[in-house]
C-alpha cells in the first residue's frame, strides 16, 4: 500500500536524478529531511494526502502546441481592464497572455532550468530573464511542515512569475494557471511572487483551470508583500477538472495600513488542499477573507488559513461557507493568532457548512490563539442541514422542494460573491457555482 514513506522515496529518487540541478537537489533533500506532512500533523488532519500516492513530481516540460491549444480552449472570456497572464503547466505562455506583457511583470527563469527544451519552441519567448530575487521569508511562526509544499515548489518550479507594482500605482491582473500535463508523467509547479508598493492598488484575479478532463497534479506557490497603505483585492478561483489533484501555498505579509480583501472559491479538483499563511505585520493592517467551498461527488477540499496579528490594531474578518453534496468532504481550518505586540487587534470568524449529501462530510476548525488581553476576538461555527423553517416558508408559498432547496443553497453562498464589483467576474463566479451546485435556478435571471 502506498504511504508517505513511498512518496518520500520517489522524491528522494528525483533529488538524485542527473537532470536536476544541484541547487534544486539540495532544496528537495532539505524538504524531505524535514519530512512530508502526515495526518498526524494537526494542520494536515483533514487533507487528502493519499492524493500523493503514486504521484510523479517531475516538472512538466515546456507546453507544446497541443497543450497550448488545450489551455486556450479552457480559458474563460477575458476580463475587461485586466491584463491576462497565462501560465501553462508552470510555464508562462506569452501566446496566451496579454501582448505585450505589462511592464510590472517579469518572468524569472529559475537558475538551472529543468528542461533543455528551447523556450521559443513552445512559443513562450521570454521577456526578461534574470535570477530570482531574494525569496520572501517564510511566515514567522508557521510550523515548517506547513511550508513543505512551498519548498517542493521552490525545488521544482521551472519559472517564477514576478509582479512588482510600484509606489502609488494601480493595476488589474488576471492570472490563469492551466494544468494540462498528465499526472502520471509530470506535475505542474507554478510560482508567483508579488510585491505591491506603498500606496499601490492591485485587483488580482487568480484562476486554476484544468484542460479538459485530464488528470493533473499541480503544486502552486504564491508569495505576496503588500506595502504600506497599499490595497490588494484578490479573487482566487479553483476550477480544476474532476480528476485533478491540487496543492497550493499562499504566503502574504501586510504592512502598515495595508488592506487585503480575499474571495476564495473552490469548486473543482478531485482533491485539493490550500494552505494560506498570512501575516499582518504593520499597524492597522486589515484582512478580509471570504471563502466558498462547493463539494460534490467524491471531491475532497481542505483549506487551512493561518492569520497572524503582529502589528497594533490589526484586524481580520473571516467567513467560510461550504456546501458538501454527494460523498464529498469539505474542511476549513481557520487559525487566528494574536501576538502580544498586536495591542488592540480584532478578529472575527464565521464558519458555516451545509451538508447536502447523505454521505457528505464537513469539518470546520475555528481556532484562536491569543497572547494579549487588549483584544477582541470571537468566532462562530455551524454545520448542519438547510433551515427547516426557511424551507417551510418557501414551500408554503408554492415553491416545489427542488427549487426551495436550490434557492436556500444559493442564498447560503451568494452573499459571499455578491460583493464582487466587476459584473463580468461576478457572473463567471456565479456560473461556476451554479454548475457545481447543479442548481435548477437560472442564474441569468438573478442578474
Amino acid at each position: 500500500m502506498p504511504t508517505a514513506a513511498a512518496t518520500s522515496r520517489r522524491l528522494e529518487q528525483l533529488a538524485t536524478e542527473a537532470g536536476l540541478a544541484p541547487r534544486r537537489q539540495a532544496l528537495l533533500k532539505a524538504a524531505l529531511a524535514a519530512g512530508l506532512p502526515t495526518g498526524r500533523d494537526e494542520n494536515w488532519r483533514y487533507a487528502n494526502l493519499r492524493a500523493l500516492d503514486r504521484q510523479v513530481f517531475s516538472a512538466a516540460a515546456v507546453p507544446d502546441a497541443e497543450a497550448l491549444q488545450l489551455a486556450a480552449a479552457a480559458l474563460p472570456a477575458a476580463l475587461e481592464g485586466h491584463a491576462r497572464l497565462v501560465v501553462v503547466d508552470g510555464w508562462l505562455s506569452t501566446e496566451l497572455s496579454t501582448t505585450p506583457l505589462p511592464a510590472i511583470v517579469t518572468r524569472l527563469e529559475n537558475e538551472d532550468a529543468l528542461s533543455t527544451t528551447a523556450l521559443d519552441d513552445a512559443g513562450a519567448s521570454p521577456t526578461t530573464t534574470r535570477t530570482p530575487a531574494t525569496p520572501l521569508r517564510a511566515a514567522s511562526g508557521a510550523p515548517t511542515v506547513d511550508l513543505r509544499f512551498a519548498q517542493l515548489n521552490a525545488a521544482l518550479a521551472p519559472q517564477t512569475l514576478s509582479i512588482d507594482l510600484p509606489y502609488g500605482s494601480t493595476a488589474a491582473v488576471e492570472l490563469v494557471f492551466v494544468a494540462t500535463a498528465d499526472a502520471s508523467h509530470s506535475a505542474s509547479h507554478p510560482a508567483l511572487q508579488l510585491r505591491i508598493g506603498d500606496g499601490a492598488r492591485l485587483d488580482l484575479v487568480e484562476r486554476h483551470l484544468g484542460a479538459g478532463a485530464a488528470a493533473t497534479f499541480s503544486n502552486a506557490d504564491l508569495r505576496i508583500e503588500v506595502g504600506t497603505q497599499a490595497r490588494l483585492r484578490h479573487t482566487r478561483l479553483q476550477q480544476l477538472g474532476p480528476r485533478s489533484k491540487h496543492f497550493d501555498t499562499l504566503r502574504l505579509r501586510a504592512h502598515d495600513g495595508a488592506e487585503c480583501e480575499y474571495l476564495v472559491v473552490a469548486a473543482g479538483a478531485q482533491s485539493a488542499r490550500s494552505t494560506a499563511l498570512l501575516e499582518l505585520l504593520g499597524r492597522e493592517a486589515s484582512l478580509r477573507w471570504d471563502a466558498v467551498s462547493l463539494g460534490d461527488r467524491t471531491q475532497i477540499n481542505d483549506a487551512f488559513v493561518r492569520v497572524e496579528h503582529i502589528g497594533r490594531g490589526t484586524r481580520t474578518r473571516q467567513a467560510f461557507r461550504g456546501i458538501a453534496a454527494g460523498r464529498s468532504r469539505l474542511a476549513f481550518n481557520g487559525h487566528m493568532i494574536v501576538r502580544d505586540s498586536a495591542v488592540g487587534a480584532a478578529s472575527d470568524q464565521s464558519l458555516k457548512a451545509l451538508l447536502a449529501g447523505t454521505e457528505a462530510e464537513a469539518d470546520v476548525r475555528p481556532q484562536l490563539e491569543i497572547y494579549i488581553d487588549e483584544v477582541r476576538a470571537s468566532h462562530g461555527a455551524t454545520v448542519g442541514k438547510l433551515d427547516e423553517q426557511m424551507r417551510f416558508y418557501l414551500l408554503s408559498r408554492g415553491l416545489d422542494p427542488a427549487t426551495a432547496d436550490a434557492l436556500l443553497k444559493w442564498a447560503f453562498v451568494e452573499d459571499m460573491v455578491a460583493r464582487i464589483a466587476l459584473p463580468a467576474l461576478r457572473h463567471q463566479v456565479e456560473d461556476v457555482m451554479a454548475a457545481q451546485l447543479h442548481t435548477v435556478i437560472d442564474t441569468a435571471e438573478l442578474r
Partner: protein
Amino acid sequence: MTGTADIGKLVGQAYKHGFVTDIESDSLPPGLDEDVVRQISRIKREPQFMTDWRLSALRHWQTLVEPQWAHLRAHPVDFQAISYYSAPKSKANAPKSLDEVDPKLLATYEKLGVPLHERARLAGVAVDAVFDSVSVATTFKDRLEKAGVIFCSFSEAVQKHPELVEKYLGTVVPYQDNFYACLNSAVFSDGSFVYIPPGVRCPMELSTYFRINATNTGQFERTLIIAAPGSHVSYLEGCTAPMRDENQLHAAVVELIAEDDAQIKYSTVQNWYPGDENGVGGIYNFVTKRGDCRGRNSRISWTQVETGSAITWKYPSCVLRGEGSIGEFYSVATATNLQQADTGTKMIHIGANTRSTIVSKGISAGRGQNAYRGLVRILPGAHGARNFTQCDSLLMGPKCGAHTFPYVEVKNPTATVEHEASTSKISEDQLFYCLQRGISEEDAINMIVSGFCKSVFKELPMEFAVEAQNLLAVSLEGAVG
C-alpha cells in the same frame, strides 16, 4: 483605572493545601518494568486477569511516545525516576474502619475540610479517600449497601466483585487509548468503584478525595462507575497536594458507563498544587476521563472546576452510543502565574437523536496559558444529532494567553452543530459601572468573574459549588468570593 494591580493582588494569593503530612508510608523504589507491575499486582492480591491486563498495558506503553500536540510546555518527565506505589502504613493492609486509619491521616482530611469521618454524617456525602496510591477509607458503606449501591475502593472491588471489574474495566478507556491512560492501566494502584443497580437512585452524593502526600511518587488512580438501567448517581471528586519544588505526575483514568435511562453526574474540583509564582514545582495532571452512554436515553454530565496543577491535560468525553442519549460538559479552568491548561472535551455522537452541550469558561491571568480543545464528532448513524458549544475566555493581564481549538466533524446531513466563542478582558465599562456605584474594585472584579462562571457553577452540586467558590477565592477568582 485598569484594575490590573488589584487583579495581581488577587492572583497572588497562596496555595492553602500545600502542607505535608508526616506519615509513614510503604513505597516501591523508583522505576518501571514488568517486575514493578507484577509487584503492584501482588501487593493488591489481584487475580490473574488483572496482572495480565496490567502487563499487556505496560508492554504497549513501552511502544508509545508522549503526545506533543497539546498547547503546553513541560519539562520532560523521567518515568524511571518515579515511584509507582506509595501507601500510608496502617495496622492492616487495608483499614477495616476509620478507627484503623492513622489519626494523622484523618487530621489531614480535617484540614482539607473533607467530611471523611462518620460524624460528618450531616454533610450527607459518602466519601472514598485516596491517599497517594491507596484508598484509606470509605464512609457510609452500610447505608449504601442497603440501597444495593457498591461504593468502595478499586482494590476492594477487585477482591469482592471481580466479575464486574473484569466485565467493565477498560471497556471505555482501553489501555491502548493514549500514552497516559496506558501508563495508568499498567500501574494504577487504587481508586474508586461504583455500581448502581437497576432502577436505584443513589441515596446520597458520592465523593472521592485524592491526595498526593509522598515525595517522588506519582498518583495513578482509576475510577469506574457503572450505572445500570434506570439508575442515577451524582459523584464528586476533589484533589490536593503538598507544595514541593519538583513536578509530580498524576495520571488518572475515569470510566463511566450509563445503561438505558441511567444518569451519571460527575463533578470535579481539581486543586492540585499549581507550583509557585515562578513556575517551580506543581503537579503535572494528565488525566483521561470518558463516559459511555451505552443505553437509550442515558445521560452523562461532566462538571469541572480546574484551578490547580502546573499543567492540566484533560478532556472528559462522552461517547453517545444509545439512541437519545445526552452528554454535557461544563468547565471553568483557570491558569495563573505560570500554569498551563489544555483542557476541553470530546462528544462522539454515534446514536440517533443524541444531544450534547458544552459550556467552557477559561480564565487566564499572570503568565498563565489556558487552552480549550474540544471535539464534536457526528458519525453517519447519528441522525438528528445536535450539539451546542459555548466557549468563552477571560484575559487578565498583558502576558497571559487564551486559546481555543475546537474540532467540528460532521458526517450526517441531518445533524446540527453550533459552536461559538469569545475572548476578551474584563470590560472597563463594567468595572467603571460598579465603581461608580460605590462598589470596591475587588468586589467589582468578584462580581464580574462570578457572572462569567455562573453558568458552570450552577451545575455543581451544592457542596462543591461552595468549595469551588472558596477555591477560586484562593487562586484566581478571589473575585468570586
